[in-house]
């Protein structure tokens, strides 16, 4: 039995089966992923048993690099099973100024052992975005810088466009007064005064909703932002544990926050709502087993190359 488990034939068979599963899943499968199927888990067990048996059979005579490399792989597969069965992941939606300890996953909600308050959410840009206006009519498409006070002539339509006001995050206050909801470019808009066919109209154009006012004008106008490349999105939060002091921190992409065995990741935001941020909360003990396996594997590979 050990001889069969440790055989190279079994290794090649497992490799072929895994390759077949990967090709099927990535190119053809439109249903539930094969990675969650019991037979796929069985393949993982078989792979680990094959590598472990091979290492055991040669334990007395094998070199250090062989043992480290193969034991590392077994530890990684073991860690993968710990992750598969015990990993917790849920989404934590937050609104600015409110406190939440409820995370959601697959329609169920989970009470976290701490509460999180979103103090502020902000987008960082590489450079200050530039507003651009595009006019499209029978004469073609022409683009102009959108600057407050600028007047754009459209001779083909005998029209004139005056840029009255630009806002970064369009909002309406009491009395339908236009205000900036936040200092960030969440809902950029331009108020234009358009004179065409003896008629003067004051209209708002939104970067996030490009199809507005199509029937009201003899031409199309689009307002958009250039160089609006986002550098990062950041949630400033206060974490309030059941016991112990509060923690104030910033969570950004590639900069998660670890607290009480959980890790909080910046996942998403709503471009049209400056006060919303979506975090992902995970708890995965398997990752440390996997990292131990990675360390053994890399040490084994390094020694193998030196051979």
């Amino acid at each position, binding site marked *: 039995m050990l001889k069969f488990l440790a055989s*190279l034939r079994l*290794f*090649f068979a497992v*490799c072929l089966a*895994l*390759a077949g599963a*990967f*090709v099927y*899943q*990535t*190119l053809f499968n439109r249903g539930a*992923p094969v*990675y969650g199927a019991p037979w796929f888990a069985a393949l993982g067990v078989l792979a680990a048993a094959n590598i472990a048996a091979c290492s055991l059979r040669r334990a007395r005579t094998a070199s250090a690099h062989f043992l480290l490399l193969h034991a590392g792989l077994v530890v990684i597969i073991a860690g*993968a099973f710990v*992750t598969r069965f015990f990993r917790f*992941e849920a989404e934590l939606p937050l609104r600015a100024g409110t406190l939440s300890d409820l995370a959601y996953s697959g329609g169920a909600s989970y009470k976290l052992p701490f509460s999180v308050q979103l103090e502020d959410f902000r987008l960082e840009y*590489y450079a200050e975005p530039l507003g651009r206006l595009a006019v499209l009519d029978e004469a073609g498409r022409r683009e102009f810088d959108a600057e407050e006070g600028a007047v754009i002539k459209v001779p083909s339509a005998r029209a004139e466009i005056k840029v009255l006001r630009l806002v970064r995050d369009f909002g309406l206050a009491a009395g339908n007064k236009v205000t900036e909801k936040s200092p960030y470019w969440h809902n950029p808009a331009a108020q234009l005064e358009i004179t065409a066919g003896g008629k003067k109209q004051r209209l708002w154009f939104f970067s996030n909703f490009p199809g507005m006012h199509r029937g009201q004008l003899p031409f199309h106008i689009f307002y958009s932002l250039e160089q609006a*490349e*986002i*550098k*990062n*999105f950041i949630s400033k939060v206060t974490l309030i544990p059941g016991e112990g002091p509060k923690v104030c921190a910033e969570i*950004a*992409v*590639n900069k*998660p926050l670890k607290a009480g065995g959980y*890790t909080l*990741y910046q*996942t998403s935001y709503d471009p049209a709502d400056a006060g919303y941020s979506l975090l*992902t909360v*995970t708890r*995965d003990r398997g*990752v440390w087993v*996997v*990292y131990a396996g*990675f360390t053994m*594997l*890399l040490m084994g*590979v*390094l020694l*193998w*190359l030196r051979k």
Partner: protein
Amino acid sequence: MAAQIICFNAAFGLCLAALAVHAAAYAFKRPRLGGAALPALGLAWLALTAGLAFLWVKLGRAPLSNQYESLLVMLWFVFPLSFYFYRKTGKAEIVPAAALAASALFGAAALLDRTARPLMPALRSDWLILHVLSSMAAYAAFALAAAAAAWALVKRRAEIFEDFLLRLARTGFAFLTLGIVTGSVWANTAWGAWWSWDPKETWSLLTWLAYAAALHLRKKGPLGAKFSVMLLLCFALVLFTYFGVNFLLSGMHSYA
């Protein structure tokens, strides 16, 4: 024309010249003629290095964020790997294999979109450099191994080349292992999961398994031409992982 483009074009031209010199030496049976190929490749490497330095300065970051940039970095690794193995083994055929691999990769780079964009938030990490460099070093070693395997098969000298091919495949396998491991650790920091079965991850694992199987097959003894054919088949998987996954499958690596 931008300085980096002039450098890249010069490097491409020098690689083609190295290939042409070797083809002429082979066709006219003048082995001495082939001696000019090595200095040409050396100059090509210098030109490529200068081009990448210009690009780095222009972008204000390491040129590793899209397929065009990463392919140039992969190309950069082809040269030192071929010089190292040429010096170590003394096999003259490594030079045309390097010229062939570099010319093909330069040709592929010319077809890619050169538009440089700022790094998206998920890529703004120190792990980017380690992950991409190790993956590209692996792909360069595999490209060189595939080119050498093709050369060996054409010249019917697969048996003589087998030890060299094995060392190249091992080098590539070690770098690919490092690339997958660093990618996994980075994914856990950026996305919250050390493995997500993203198509790029899955095909990288498939490529890793294929080379692992090839290296284990070789343990039974010399395989001759079969090993060269296997390395070519494995390299087809590398090409699909690097190009095919991006164009045919959507996933979290859609920028790479």
